[in-house]
């Protein structure tokens, strides 16, 4: 963990010096995680691509102004989340005609499909914290920073989100079992 922190601190230093290679390393490390997060947050592939591009443009603009002790993962996910929220506000202001509903990633594996569906059905606040902690592997402190919460509030939200997801999965799996039984008859 200490080696990782040293490595991250060195990367921050190089970003502060606006080193192009450091920016490429940052992109290699966080481009896919930030896209995954946005894809599952907004439920639309094309929109996620646009938001991802906006996120990285903002990262590039502000990389040289990073604080020495910056947490890169928290910083990038915060920018990504802000881009998503700005897009939501813009959409609400313009009152666009209702576009296609969010499509959560489909899988061939029915169990994975159920999890994706359940994630998509969760309220946004619950989905955000599960994406950050569950899928992206951030710790609760980092998730709290990204979501603008206190650590204990984030922990509570995670517990509630986890319980809600568990309920949805149980319901979905119960439905699957019932369907299998009906099919067997």
């Amino acid at each position: 963990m200490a080696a990782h922190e040293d490595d991250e601190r060195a990367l921050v230093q190089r970003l502060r010096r606006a080193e192009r290679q450091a920016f490429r390393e940052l992109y290699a490390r966080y481009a896919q995680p930030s896209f995954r997060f946005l894809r599952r947050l907004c439920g639309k592939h094309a929109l996620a691509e646009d938001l991802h591009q906006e996120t990285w443009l903002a990262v590039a603009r502000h990389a040289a102004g990073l604080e020495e002790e910056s947490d890169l993962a928290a910083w990038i996910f915060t920018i990504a989340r802000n881009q998503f929220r700005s897009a939501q506000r813009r959409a609400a202001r313009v009152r666009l005609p209702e576009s296609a509903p969010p499509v959560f990633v489909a899988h061939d594996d029915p169990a994975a499909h159920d999890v994706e569906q359940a994630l998509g059905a969760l309220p946004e606040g619950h989905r955000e914290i599960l994406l950050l902690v569950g899928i992206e592997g951030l710790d609760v402190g980092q998730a709290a920073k990204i979501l603008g919460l206190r650590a204990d509030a984030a922990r509570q939200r995670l517990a509630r989100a986890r319980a809600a997801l568990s309920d949805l999965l149980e319901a979905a799996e119960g439905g699957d079992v019932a369907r299998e039984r009906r099919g067997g008859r």
Partner: protein
Amino acid sequence: MKMRDRNDERPDPLLERLRALPSQGLDDVTSARTLARAEAVLPDRGGSARGREARAATPRFTRWVLSAALLGWGTLYVWGAVDALTRLFPMKAATTTVAVLSRSTIR
């Protein structure tokens, strides 16, 4: 990226299940295009370094003196305004008190 294992000692099966989800990533072409666009707005190294050096070169003493001068000017301004207002609108209650006292002195 920092991993979550600091949160709990025991692995959470539900979160493990989430982490095991296969994900639909960003395709290489879009990824390369995004990187190219982002690099285009990256500030040039010389400019950024020059800016930081210029900020660091501003002596702390000068900044302190400037702040003190602003504070002094602000204090004088407020004091002047209060003084002018008290001259324009003298406190009537105090005048009345003086009158009462002087009448009692005459008797």
